[in-house]
């Protein structure tokens, strides 16, 4: 038996009688998001094509059987897994043999087994200045200093976490240190440009530039946020419109407000957008 579920009355038009105001508004927000958009057809074509490709068996997962005796018997295949271990073993044996040969050489030249240093005769044909005495010390070498910590100390920023950077920038902002906050947000965006924290920071940094009277830089931040998209696009569009207004670009401001109204007709900013559009010259 086939039954069609989810056939209750759509909530987008009429609020459910049983629901409270916050429930109804939340459902409306969710339903608004589900509306079809321009470009959906191409997007779905691409995604379906990707799914089709992803589900195919991976090519070259099994090599074609060969007919030659060595390959067809495949007796060597289980040994492949031991190849790295065999290589290590060979290297170890080789190093051990070399070490033993060197040790034998040293013991031949050194009369006392416990001598702290031994003197080697210079090879024939090599002129060594008087007083230069090549020696091999048998004392243990001082412990080596690991290289990694010193390298890490040269680039401490790489260790930072984007969320930590975001939080530290917010702390600076709350403390009233706008310059430090800006610097940390910029660092966050530079180090982790693809992170969610960096994306959110574009709106905050934009507002900081606006506070500092630099709408050009603010606009750059808002537009970068909008280019990548995110859950705060509504806010970004509104902020972009404000930045255009601060720059005196009336036609761009009107375009931003119209975009906001078309994408988010129920937006909190919709009333403000309509007011500005009616006040701007040349807008309907």
């Amino acid at each position: 038996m086939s039954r069609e579920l989810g056939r209750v009355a759509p909530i987008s038009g009429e609020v459910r009688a049983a629901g409270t105001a916050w429930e109804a508004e939340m459902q409306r927000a969710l339903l608004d998001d589900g509306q079809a958009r321009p470009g959906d057809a191409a997007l779905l074509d691409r995604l379906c094509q990707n799914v089709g490709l992803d589900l195919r068996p991976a090519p070259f997962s099994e090599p074609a059987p060969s007919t030659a005796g060595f390959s067809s018997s495949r007796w060597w295949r289980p040994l492949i897994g031991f190849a790295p271990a065999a290589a290590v073993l060979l290297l170890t044996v080789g190093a051990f043999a070399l070490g033993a040969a060197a040790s034998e050489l040293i013991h031949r030249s050194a009369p006392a087994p416990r001598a702290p240093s031994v003197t080697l005769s210079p090879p024939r044909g090599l002129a060594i200045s008087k007083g230069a005495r090549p020696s091999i010390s048998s004392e243990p070498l001082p412990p080596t200093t690991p290289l990694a910590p010193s390298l890490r100390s040269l680039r401490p920023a790489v260790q930072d976490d984007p969320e930590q950077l975001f939080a530290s920038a917010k702390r600076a902002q709350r403390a009233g240190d706008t310059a430090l906050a800006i610097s940390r947000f910029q660092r966050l965006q530079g180090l982790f440009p693809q992170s969610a924290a960096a994306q959110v920071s574009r709106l905050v940094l934009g507002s900081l530039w606006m506070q500092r009277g630099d709408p050009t830089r603010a606009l750059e931040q808002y537009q970068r946020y909008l280019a990548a998209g995110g859950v705060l696009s509504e806010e970004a569009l509104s902020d972009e419109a404000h930045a255009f207004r601060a720059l005196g670009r009336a036609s761009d401001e009107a375009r931003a407000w119209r975009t906001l109204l078309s994408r988010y007709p129920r937006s909190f900013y919709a009333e403000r957008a309509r007011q500005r559009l009616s006040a701007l010259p040349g807008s309907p």
Partner: protein
Amino acid sequence: MLPTSHVAETAAGAVGALTAPLLRELGASVLRVVRQVLGAADPEVEDLTQESLKALVLAWPAFRGECSPAHFARRIAAQRCIDHIRSKRVRQTALGQLALDETGEAMPPRSSTRLREAWRRALADLPPEQALSVTQRYVLGYTLEEIAAESSAPLNTVKSRLRLAKQVLRARVAEDPRLADLLEAP
């Protein structure tokens, strides 16, 4: 695009192979659900839609035609999105965005964005069965009876799950002082 009747015809007849045109047709339903649950502006909508479509293809052999293919696809997409929201990564993102609220300089007093964030935080916190029930109710538009049939649970259990889920949702809305007027409204 196939005519909308194509899906219904497929459901009414024998369950056949999931052909490319049918997958494409069901993709629209999947995309809609993903946008509803995640938020249309979420940058991961595409990825989740593709993952849901992949899950649909894999689950198709288990489809017995007891409901429409569109419903089957929507249910898979809703479940996939809930799993995604409940993942640690997305939760951290939501918490990171919450940090923005502390000073409130870039946020409006009240907006659908805030409600969507409350929704996401609630889904991340709810037990899986409650998260699924409230998604079926709010996003897929199921009746209580449909949710009970779908989850093979007694009607009273479903009512209880929804009641508890709504408490969490309400708490998340209440966390945001700028949504307080919504809670005061009848």
